[in-house]
């Protein structure tokens, strides 16, 4: 159910945990970014802190001003999940600087996306309870 918070028992088991979601594919090539965002909402509803690391083409997911005519804007969906994460549980996002520079999207990332690098990902992997790569 959309927007459902986990039960008290579920929250007890998952609250305070941290998941890192790495992605590498662009926003509209396949459905993976939608799954990524849905997964992040579900994790946050269970009290889990979410770290997005956008690598390679997925740095376009967090780019602002996306206006697809026939699809939902992945940029808007991504921005919403970040905004919802201002309080606990947090949702943070880092975009790889080498990737954003090469695609010309460093300065146009949506609010909440921090420009960083692979050293940040290494730290997130070390800190997180789980790290997965999806899309």
């Amino acid at each position, binding site marked *: 159910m959309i927007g459902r918070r986990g039960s008290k028992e579920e929250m007890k088991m998952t609250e305070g945990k941290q998941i890192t979601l*790495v992605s*590498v594919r662009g926003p509209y090539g396949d459905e993976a970014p939608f799954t990524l965002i849905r997964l992040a909402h579900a994790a946050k509803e269970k009290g889990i802190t979410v770290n997005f690391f956008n*690598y*390679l*083409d997925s740095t376009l997911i967090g780019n602002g001003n996306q206006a697809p005519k026939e699809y939902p804007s992945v940029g808007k969906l991504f921005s919403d999940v970040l905004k919802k994460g201002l309080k606990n549980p947090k949702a943070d996002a880092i975009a790889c600087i*080498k990737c954003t520079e090469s695609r010309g999207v460093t300065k146009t990332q949506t609010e909440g996306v921090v420009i960083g*690098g*692979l*050293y940040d*990902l*290494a*730290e997130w*992997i*070390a*800190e997180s309870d*789980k*790290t*997965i*790569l999806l899309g």
Partner: protein
Amino acid sequence: MSKKVNIIVTQPPYGKEEVFGAIPLAATQSAADNEASITLVSGAVHAVVTGQQTGYGDVARWDKNIPPLENEIKNNLDLFDFYVLDRDLQKRGITDGEIIEGIKKTTISELTDRILESDVTLVL
């Protein structure tokens, strides 16, 4: 807490960016005390063939060449273990003499063990 990070790449080099992205991803792990390895499977095994030459023609027109993956691999071999799946090399007719020195051939059974032993497995 330091983690064992097992990176598996399935996508072929040059047409796709995954192998090129996996190398710095593995190389930076030691900064957080993580221990990384890369295993190339399926079309990604082409990345370990020696004698790679890149370039689309006139450098003046193309600004700069794409760096050959062979160099990227050789420059990072001392930072992490680099494996390639033996059967996927065989399928593509790549012989031992054509493989970059320092690359370790591995079996699907050994890869399964690495997945079980790792804290994190990332598939690109």
